């Protein structure tokens, strides 16, 4: 089926039948539709979730425009079709197609999946199947596109290794244009994809493996012991790099950032301008994978951000700018930037929002700036219920910080507070869970007291969301086991019984989902067949509560005779080999061990931005450095 036929059926029959047809139409303002005959390399950016989730992802926005701004390449988009559309596609044997040209995915040279969360892996398999592309990399030939991936879960891509031709480590704006150029050159020189008689795929992959940040799983062989447990992973010969290192943007201020950004028709999750103020976070929370893998902290200058905001407002017509990053209150120029943006665009009624707040008074002051009138809720993440456990995870927040923050928020006129916690953290005791309930109650009391004294009749609302800790690779907790499901459920019930206050709403996560997430996060290549089986059993949209079925996974583990508990529940010794250690994210093993030991001793580690270097190894091993744009940073250290 070619693009005309697909388009015809889509317009005549399918779009009428499915919910939210603009998930599939394309045509958004600032969409780029390039002529295929003018480029050497074509790539489809594949987001393994539904449109409204994928279009909220900043990485897609950056790479889409970056690649389309290059003369010799183009990028189009594809998202996981929702259940109703999938059914129609399968019924009519219509291959999965891109939004821009409506070409079948098979027509592209490269299909690139972004790995945002483990629970989207089954959708990757499903999308390949819908595209009529063989799932296993060794079943693919020159007639098929290269299947590549990148994003945060590339930190341990091993469970997906047998499905992927290559993986990009680190920040894509560095490596992707170079990769696509190399593929284009190879295509022209070697006739790849034009001469069906030849199989030059292997030669191409060997060549691409030489590029910095490019990991070709098929060139690395894992070894297992008699019990099937991972022992080592080695390159197949000495022409292949022994280690692959993540690539990072050294100067974020000069890095590409699109200002002719697409404007979706339907409401998407983040339906506003996303202005990235900084990348990385060095607060060094010990559970946090993003804190490890996006190091070091690099900021954009005020001048650049002001200019980008101006252009984005003009080019998109949005009336809201979100200042995005892992922790925007940490941006060294956040206050002057906020004031400037609000003032410069007041006439156009452009609002500014801060998606991430720290637990401190300063953050509430910032929130006051942006939510002058409409005070929706404020969200804070103390993460743990006692000071001891917060010290274990290096969350530099004291109870006084939290109470001062909360007081300020209620005084400032907010009446809904959301608190995020984790359960199952290393060294957790009953007292720590009790601490969650106690903190929530205290927050509610403080709120009610303030409201009473001010004569406000509105009720205080506190929402407590408690997720289950999932140990992640490249963090100091990578050696830690996850709590058993039964124990997590017991803890969830404990809190449910314990939290009786009607002002408090308590939410928790499905421990079964967290379990599969843990298995996949720390899994090895052996899990590929489990994933395949689970997909065969019908797994898809596993990140959506209504579509996740634990039995599909249980049956898959049984069928493949693989014990998931080995991955999730085992305490790993420091000298054990790890399936992801041939991939270098810059943070040294010795730093992670040191941090892990400090955690057990409840010892804190400072933020290297404002204090002394904690010797994580990123800057020295990647040849870059922390890049702050504000004035005197020493002043900020008391905000920790």
């Amino acid at each position: 089926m070619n693009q005309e036929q697909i388009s015809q059926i889509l317009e005549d029959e399918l779009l009428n039948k499915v919910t939210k047809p603009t998930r599939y139409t394309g045509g958004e303002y600032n969409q780029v539709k390039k002529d295929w005959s003018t480029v050497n390399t074509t790539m489809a950016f594949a987001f393994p979730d539904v449109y409204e989730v994928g279009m909220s992802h900043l990485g897609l926005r950056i790479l889409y425009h970056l690649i389309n701004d290059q003369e010799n390449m183009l990028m189009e988009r594809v998202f996981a079709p929702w259940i109703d559309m999938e059914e129609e596609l399968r019924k009519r044997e219509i291959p999965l197609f891109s939004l821009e040209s409506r070409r079948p995915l098979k027509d592209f040279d490269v299909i690139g999946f972004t790995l945002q969360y483990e629970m989207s892996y089954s959708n990757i398999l499903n999308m390949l199947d819908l595209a009529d592309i063989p799932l296993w990399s060794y079943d693919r030939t020159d007639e098929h596109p290269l299947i590549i991936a990148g994003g945060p879960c590339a930190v341990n891509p091993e469970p997906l290794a047998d499905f992927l031709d290559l993986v990009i480590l680190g920040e894509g704006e560095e490596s992707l244009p170079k990769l696509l150029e190399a593929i284009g050159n190879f295509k022209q020189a070697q006739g790849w994809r034009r001469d069906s008689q030849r199989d030059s795929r292997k030669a191409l992959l060997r060549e691409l493996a030489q590029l910095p940040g490019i990991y070709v799983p098929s060139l690395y062989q894992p070894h297992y012991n008699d019990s099937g447990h991972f022992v080592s992973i080695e390159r197949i010969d000495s022409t292949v790099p022994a280690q692959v290192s993540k690539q990072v943007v050294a100067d974020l201020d000069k890095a590409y950032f699109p200002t002719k950004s697409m404007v979706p028709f339907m409401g998407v999750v983040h339906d506003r301008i996303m202005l990235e103020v900084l990348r990385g976070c060095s607060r060094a929370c010990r559970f946090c994978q993003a804190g490890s893998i996006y190091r070091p902290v690099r900021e954009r200058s005020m001048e650049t951000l002001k200019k980008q905001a101006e252009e984005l407002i003009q080019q998109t017509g949005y009336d809201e700018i979100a200042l995005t990053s892992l922790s925007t209150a940490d941006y060294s120029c956040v206050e002057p930037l906020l004031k400037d943006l609000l003032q410069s665009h007041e006439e156009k009624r452009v609002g500014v929002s801060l998606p991430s707040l720290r637990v401190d008074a300063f953050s509430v002051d910032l929130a006051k700036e942006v939510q002058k009138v409409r005070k929706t809720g404020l969200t804070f993440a103390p993460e743990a219920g006692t000071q001891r456990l917060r010290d274990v995870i290096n969350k530099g927040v004291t109870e006084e910080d939290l109470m001062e923050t909360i007081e300020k928020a209620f005084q400032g006129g907010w009446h809904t507070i959301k608190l995020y916690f984790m359960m199952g953290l290393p060294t957790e005791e009953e007292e720590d869970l009790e601490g969650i309930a106690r903190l929530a109650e205290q927050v509610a009391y403080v709120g009610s007291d303030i409201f009473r004294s001010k004569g406000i009749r509105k009720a205080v609302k506190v929402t407590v969301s408690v997720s289950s800790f999932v140990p992640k690779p490249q963090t100091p907790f990578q050696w830690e086991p996850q709590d058993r499901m039964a124990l997590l459920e017991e803890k969830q019930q404990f809190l449910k019984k314990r939290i009786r206050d009607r002002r408090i709403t308590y939410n928790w996560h499905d421990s079964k989902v967290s379990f599969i997430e843990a298995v996949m996060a720390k899994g090895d290549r052996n899990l590929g067949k489990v994933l395949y089986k689970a997909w065969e059993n019908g797994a898809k949209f596993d990140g959506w509560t209504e579509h996740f079925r634990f039995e599909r996974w249980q049956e898959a583990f049984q069928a493949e005779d693989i014990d998931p508990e080995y991955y999730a529940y085992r305490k790993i010794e420091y000298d054990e080999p790890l399936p992801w250690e041939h991939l270098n994210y810059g943070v040294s093993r010795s730093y992670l061990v040191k941090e892990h030991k400090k955690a057990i001793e409840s010892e804190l580690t400072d933020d290297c931005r404002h204090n002394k270097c904690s010797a994580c190894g990123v800057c020295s091993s990647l040849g870059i450095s922390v890049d702050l744009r504000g004035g005197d940073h020493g002043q900020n250290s008391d905000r920790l």
Partner: protein
Amino acid sequence: MARIRIAFSKEDPVRWLSHLDTQKAFERALRRAQIPLSYSEGFNPHPKISFASALAVGVVSLGEYVDVEVSQEIEGAEVVKSLQTAMPEGFRIIEATLVPSGQKALMALVNRAQYRIKAPLLKVLDEKTVQDAVVNALSLTNWQVEREGKKGTVIKDIRSGVYELKSSIIENHLLLEMLVQTGSEGNVRPEEVLSIVVQQESLPVNVDRLRILRLGLFVTKGDQLLTPIEVLKAL
């Protein structure tokens, strides 16, 4: 403070936008076009934009209308020029004109819609059979159709809302062109009219592959039909 009335078309691919999506698309395009919008007061200021009538998802229209309040007077031609380049592909800005003060709201004004509906025929048919079906249908005084409401299915008689109905066959498709009621008095849907006609002679059409085109929206003035822009010119 002034009001601008804009005539536009909604074609591929934006025919798939819902009414809410269309409102947002206009709001953002007007901002991109730097048209001086007037905003509502209150917590959450919104530009004051009102459409003549909601268009069903998937329907192409050659005559839609929207009124936009602006904070300073601006030439219609200028609006057409700057807004056209700021619109997503598929929206065509046809005309724009200032609305004198004291004029009725668009939504209260429009009461007729003209549609063309095209359905693939499953068997070859002659024009006569189709015309008979139309004549038969029009001779009936009661056209009962089912509508899904919030409280379940309701039966409604739409006959009095159908003012003109013509049929033809082109390239093995049944074509109906109609003038029907719309707006505050009630809405008649073109696919409902088709279903009544098809029932008469059990016409073999594929209702899964309908194409609907709204040719325009009108205001009755005596026995005249005027577009919402012609109404202003006739003042």
